[in-house]
């Protein structure tokens, strides 16, 4: 049989899939017709910058074939051997007992039967469930669509997501400059052009864009940073780890103690105030509350001026270095690159991270945020990009089969009860739990002040948990509590539906095998998430919408998530309610029809050719982010969800005052007495840092940022080709270990040598890793990425057992950013490390 070529899209780039005899032989960055590309050109400094006609996908995309045929695929429906829905369920054996293969009929009967039983007995709110993020791509099959549509039919209790990758920006920066509709990160329009033309220096603060790659946009922006470097733009990297972008761009590396970035930021403000090198015009006309902030910085409030010498004592960074950085920042047109897409750094995921994120905004405000060359720019979005052609994305309500207006019928969930992802185990094990904040608070600032309590009056506690995907052991905080939750008899039934065996899969009673987006029909735009990051595909050099063609039949006995839900629904007489009478391909066509794509290409051609590139128009006009605010003009960027845009307040930000707030009006109204997130930012030493009591027992700080060679947990464990990349895992004695990076001096003091197996431990957990002895980490800090997908306890089913797989998140605290800011804090984590003798 001859080779067939299909198109598809991953979470980090479009691909061509080569199939021979029903088997995928190769997966390549999408091979498009050269004539379809019309590259943009930016002129700056007498040079023309234009991208090549190709798609620079993320590394792991090249390993998709291996992931597709992974030994870790769930091949058949499985039942825990000692689970009997009509008899003894043995919930305490979750995680311990083995599984037996069962037929789809038996599996579906059990799952449908349990859903009916639980709903009939306790009400729909007794069913809960949740998805993991981004394990596949395509809006028809994406987690937001089929899962929510299915669960809504049962009126389940949803679990609210915490904004895990950008906590401080969400809970802090929003109260400083708005942008709640972007969950705290600023718009990024045309900042590549602005930076190439105007910027003289970039301060990367807790940001490693070469590793986090703008979340979904692969490596297209790597070239932009190369241009900036070749142009001679100076770079500074503030990060306890000499990260990969720093290694490539060779800027100045400044490595503060974890938890002290805010002190450094205060000292920079101190230099600007005392040396009179800030933009007073801007402060007067574009901000409020500066005098209060100034008093704190100068020490008029607490008797402690926030000088570089004071910050040196906290951060371990020489006062002269802080002073020099501040002076150069003021003298040069400087981009602050912290936040704005892509795993927004360790500094925003720790105790009082709100204060750091607010300071990032305020520092740039003092230098005229929005002026040419002076932006907050992650360097991973903001290429010239068409914003007129609308195509739905997964975070758009219109882009989900659960909520799109294109559906004939939408199941509505009237259950008001909610759970909070970070405290789900506590909610099951020791209710009640309460918190402030409605998950991703993208509709209003007020959502952050909404109080929730579980269980909610009038609703049941949850009795059944439907998990779709899942590797929280390696991504959330203090995660051994998830094992305890799963083993609770209060959860009468647990089902896990996934493509691969993940850390939570073997905690279920029934396991259902789903298939990848190479085995079903779908459609999706590269890099586009829509919703809270509208126009995210400006991180790609070309917008490309891909018809994700079914390349092969689902492997083994796997089925698409959509089909699994259809079959369960069918058993309960709800098939039509779930499917809306459509196949997956018909949903693809429906989304095509409601989009702007028919103006560019016919359905027949799109379906056959497999992609459509949306080039910028010839009369493209750049509208750099926040230039309008700087200039005092109405917003001219296409930031669709900005509620003041096109109104009579269009020249305002999304704060209460419409200005940048050194003293927050929204916090003043709702939490006027909060000492942990005060009205004006403060440096507050971490409750688990170098000044805490625990430091004498556990003197090392763990830094666990987003990983470089996997996407959260995805691609790790299921894609063993990556185990040959030593930054990702290192093979020793037949096992692929997770690296923990330790400074030469710290290693020597503990008799640890490069390549030793080491135990990272504290009172919460013990995790085995392989030591990488390096000069690239600040002494006193252990760097080990979050997101191991391999939870491998030495005693299976024992929550206290040592993990061999590298889930360092087990070591991290449950405590939140602050009492009213319920974000996770993995980078406020003290540990000790020792050589593991086995």
């Amino acid at each position: 049989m001859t080779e067939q070529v299909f198109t598809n899209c991953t979470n980090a780039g479009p691909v061509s899939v080569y199939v021979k005899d029903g088997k995928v032989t190769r997966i390549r960055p999408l091979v498009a017709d050269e004539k379809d590309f019309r590259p943009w050109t930016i002129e700056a400094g007498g040079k023309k910058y234009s991208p090549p006609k190709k798609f620079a996908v993320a590394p792991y995309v090249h390993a998709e074939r291996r992931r597709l045929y992974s030994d870790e695929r769930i091949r058949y429906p499985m039942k825990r051997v000692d689970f009997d829905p009509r008899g003894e369920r043995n919930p305490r054996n979750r995680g311990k007992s083995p599984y037996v293969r069962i037929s789809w009929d038996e599996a579906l009967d059990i799952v449908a039967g349990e859903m009916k039983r639980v709903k009939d007995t306790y009400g729909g709110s007794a069913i809960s469930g949740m998805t993991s993020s981004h394990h596949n791509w395509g809006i028809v099959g994406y987690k937001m669509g089929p899962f929510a549509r299915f669960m809504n039919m049962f009126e389940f209790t949803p679990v609210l997501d915490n904004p895990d990758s950008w906590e401080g920006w969400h809970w802090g920066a929003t109260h400083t400059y708005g942008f709640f509709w972007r969950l705290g990160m600023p718009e990024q329009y045309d900042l590549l052009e602005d930076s190439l033309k105007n910027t003289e220096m970039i301060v990367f603060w807790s940001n490693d864009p070469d590793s986090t790659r703008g979340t979904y946009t692969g490596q297209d922006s790597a070239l932009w940073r190369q241009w900036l470097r070749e142009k001679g733009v100076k770079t500074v990297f503030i990060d306890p780890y000499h990260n990969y972008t720093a290694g490539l761009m060779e800027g100045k590396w400044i490595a503060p103690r974890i938890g002290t970035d805010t002190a450094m930021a205060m000292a920079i403000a101190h230099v600007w105030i005392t040396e009179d090198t800030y933009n007073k015009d801007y402060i007067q006309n574009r901000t409020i509350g500066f005098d209060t902030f100034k008093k704190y910085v100068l020490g008029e409030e607490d008797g402690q001026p926030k000088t570089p010498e004071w910050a040196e004592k906290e951060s371990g960074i020489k006062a002269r270095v802080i002073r020099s950085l501040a002076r150069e920042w003021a003298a040069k047109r400087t981009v602050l690159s912290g936040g704005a897409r892509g795993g927004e750094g360790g500094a925003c995921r720790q105790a009082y991270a709100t204060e750091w994120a607010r300071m990032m905004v305020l520092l740039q405000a003092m230098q005229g945020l929005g002026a040419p060359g002076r932006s907050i720019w992650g360097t991973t979005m903001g290429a010239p990009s068409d914003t007129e052609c609308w195509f739905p994305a997964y975070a758009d309500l219109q882009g989900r089969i659960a909520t799109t207006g294109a559906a004939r019928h939408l199941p509505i969930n009237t259950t008001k009860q909610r759970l909070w992802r970070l405290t789900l185990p506590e909610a099951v094990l020791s209710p009640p739990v309460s918190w402030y904040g409605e998950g991703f608070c993208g509709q209003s600032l007020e959502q952050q002040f909404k109080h929730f309590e579980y269980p909610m009056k009038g609703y049941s506690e949850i009795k059944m948990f439907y998990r779709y995907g899942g590797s929280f052991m390696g991504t959330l905080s203090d995660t051994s509590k998830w094992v305890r939750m799963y083993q609770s008899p209060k959860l009468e039934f647990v089902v896990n539906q996934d493509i691969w065996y993940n850390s939570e899969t073997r905690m279920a009673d029934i396991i259902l095998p789903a298939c990848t987006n190479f085995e079903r029909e779908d459609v999706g735009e590269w890099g586009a998430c829509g919703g809270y990051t509208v126009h995210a595909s400006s991180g790609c050099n070309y917008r490309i919408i891909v018809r994700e063609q079914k390349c092969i039949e689902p492997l083994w006995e796997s089925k698409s998530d959509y089909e699994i839900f259809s079959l369960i629904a069918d058993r309960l007489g709800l098939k039509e309610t779930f499917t809306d009478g459509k196949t997956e391909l018909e949903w693809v066509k429906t989304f095509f029809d409601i989009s702007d794509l028919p103006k560019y290409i016919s359905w027949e051609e799109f379906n056959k050719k497999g992609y459509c590139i949306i080039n910028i128009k010839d009369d493209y006009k750049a509208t750099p982010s926040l230039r309008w605010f700087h200039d005092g003009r109405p917003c001219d960027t296409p930031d669709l969800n900005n509620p003041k845009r096109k109104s009579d307040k269009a020249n305002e930000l999304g704060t209460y005052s419409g200005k940048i707030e050194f003293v927050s009006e929204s916090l003043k109204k709702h939490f006027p007495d909060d000492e942990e997130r005060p009205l004006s930012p403060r440096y507050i030493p971490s409750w688990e840092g170098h000044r805490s009591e625990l430091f004498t027992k556990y003197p090392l700080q763990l830094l666990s940022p987003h990983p470089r060679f996997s996407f959260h947990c995805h691609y790790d464990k299921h894609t063993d080709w990556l185990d040959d990349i030593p930054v990702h895992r290192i093979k020793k004695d037949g096992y692929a270990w997770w690296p923990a990076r330790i400074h030469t001096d710290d290693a020597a003091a503990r008799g640890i040598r490069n390549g030793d197996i080491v135990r990272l431990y504290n009172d919460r957990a013990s995790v085995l890793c392989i030591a990488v002895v390096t000069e690239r980490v600040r002494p006193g800090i252990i760097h080990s990425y979050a997101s191991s997908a391999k939870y491998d306890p030495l005693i299976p089913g024992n929550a206290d057992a040592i993990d061999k797989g590298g889930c360092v998140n087990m070591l991290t605290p449950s405590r939140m950013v602050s009492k009213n800011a319920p974000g996770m804090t993995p980078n406020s984590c003290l540990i000790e490390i020792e050589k593991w003798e086995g």
Partner: protein
Amino acid sequence: MARVSILIDVNKCNGCYNCFLACRDEYYGNDYPSYSAAQPLNGQFWMQMKEIERGVYPRPKLSYIPVPCQHCQSAPCMDAAQDGAVYRRKDGIVMIDPEKAKGQRDIVNACPYRAIFWNEEKEIAQKCTLCAHRLDEGEKMPRCVECCPTGAMVFGYLDDSDSEISKLSAAAAKEDFHPEFKTAPLVQYVGIPKRFAAGEVVFRDKQGECAQGVKVVLEGEGGKRETRTDSFGDFEFEGLEKNKNYKITVEQAGYVSRSFDISTRTDINLGEIVLEPK
């Protein structure tokens, strides 16, 4: 027929391993009869990444050197092979015949770059073919080059003076990786890391300020170089020859000069150099 080559700019390589993974995807489990047998799951790195960490905290440096078969014009593997199991195509690509190479472990051991691998199961020597099977089908470049996000690898025809690689080669200070092997590789490099010497200058009487603009002179084998400290008081001499002796002198009017004898057996960080006022 023109000779093919890859020009690899180490300064542009971000260590993303796209090249390594794309190579795996092309060859793992895929036989290309007469060109190459399938790559096994473990132990073969036809495109190998060398991570080079240099210097010490707080002034480390990081580089990656992608190393495929160098397609040597004087190839030791060809000399070691029996029965013409290793041969050179007209375009310069050094090929291992997957049939004839059976049992010839000497081919692996002959390569000073360790770019040839032994397939235990099939008992053959294997390595990079520059995707010869694809070039012959009309593809413009090997998979590794195709997916490089930063243009760190350029593929092309050396003897065509209009090709991008010829133009870049003419302009760049290109070099062999390990010239001491004397195998005349077709694969060429720019920016292979050498040694560097760094330090930070501090004035004893002004420790709260960085000492910017201080003159620093390096003298030794290969002549004299001069630089000034930057806004952080840092200086650096990059690209020094390995295993040489140099003298670094720090001079500033009003301060006592200081000199250091260094040897580039390793990279040097002199750390804080405190200048005393006269």
